């Protein structure tokens, strides 16, 4: 799947956020299709922190049901581009 410049920028930003939030993880290790749990070692507590960091960074709310469906970096990026493009009542 070819990605636009905008998507790549979002992916890069996400990779940096993950590296800054998850211990012992570098930006280089985070690929767009990395599985958060299986490839990046994001356990349940770390996942809560990743979601909290995303909520703070993009000023959105991610419900638990939504969070459970986000298993790869690309899925998070797709969710973000939707949620940020159409902030349904989401305010800072």
């Amino acid at each position: 799947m070819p990605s636009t410049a905008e998507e790549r920028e979002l992916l890069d930003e996400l990779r940096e956020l993950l590296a800054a939030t998850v211990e012992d993880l570098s930006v280089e290790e985070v690929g767009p299709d990395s599985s958060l749990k299986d490839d990046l070692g994001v356990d349940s507590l770390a996942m809560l922190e990743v979601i909290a960091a995303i909520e703070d960074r993009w000023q959105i709310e991610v419900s638990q049901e939504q969070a459970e469906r986000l298993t790869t970096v690309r899925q998070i990026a797709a969710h973000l581009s939707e949620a940020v493009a159409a902030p349904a009542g989401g305010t800072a």
Partner: protein
Amino acid sequence: MSPRHAAAPAPEERAAVVTGLGLTTALGGDVPATWRALLDGACGVGRHDFAPPEGPPQTYLAAPAAVEPGTVLPPAKAAHCDRSAQFALVAAREAVRDAGFEEVSVLAASGSRLAVVVGVGLGGLTSILEQNHRLRTRGPGRVSPRTIPVMLPNHPAAEVGLMVGAKAGVHAPVSACASGAEALWQALGMIRDGRADIVVAGGAEAALHPLALAGFARLGALSRRLDDPEGASRPFDADRDGFVMGEGAGMLVVESAAHAAARGARVHGRLTGAGITNDSHHVAQPAPGGTGCAAAVDLALRDAGLHPEQVRHVNAHATSTPLGDLGEARALEQVFATCLDDVAVSATKAAFGHTLGAAGAIEAVLTVLALRDRTAPPARSLERVDPEIGLRVVGRSPAPLPPGPLAAVTTSMGFGGHNVALAFAS
């Protein structure tokens, strides 16, 4: 083989030696920087503004850390820790490397015989208040999922335990400003009991927050010498008027003499005795005459098999409060009555403030360094020793310690009546 079933080790093998040292203070981010600055007469106290989330800033005297711990730890690790645990990790990492374990993982291989004891005073205060602010302004859904682990008083101990892979036990003594010293008391016991071969022990504190500062100010405990920051923390001085809050951590690798010898470790000094008492007198004031403190020093000396005349150096708790310093002076005058002029008393909080739960451990590191380098560190702010106090307080210049075998004592006291004394030997 469990030590409980082993033949009792010979007393000499059960002795505890210090093989690693770590510090982060207002004077420097590690042991060499702190020790050099201390001997040079540097002072880490300044005027700083502190503002609560919604409220005007207030100027206080404070001694913030010279090196931000977040700049020397992996970013994700730092983000997951209260500042107190960040300091603990920085100092523990230095101590472990200093003990000859270049890679922390090498140390973890001996995990089942490795323990950690790290005390705090106020603990995760800053994180608690930050998350409380998020709760109030943004709702429960925006509170950090790590709120609970980082607010617990065992948080720095647990983080250090994880870093080094300690499986023989991780403990967090809490005795206010005596916590760091109590950690070493406990470490000594673990080595002697055979529970561990190596204990990474110390204390950490990061409570430079407007609430803690206001609380201590309301108690009348802080110096009001805002126009003279570098002269504000002046323990044992006739014009002392309170302490200056600092922050940081001190960490020691305490090891059984047998284990250290077997791996050919360099030994900085020996932890030869420890004593603990409680005043049972008042929640915040020392017992009159420093009787509880004197009893703790007596116990430590007896535990170490020392006569008072063999002690040449004391690193005193000496926070610079009028009552506290006087009580401690009475205690030391009593214990060392026959040799007062031979004991060089250092009051190092003059340079980096009162680091609360870290103080006892930071000062234990400094005591080991004083013995190693035969130099009692100075207190540049000292102008005139209180005429009520009969101690030989080291003033503006470092005081050389005599040749030959050396012994030293360091004291710590905390709200709640805690008294801890530790005895070290060269």
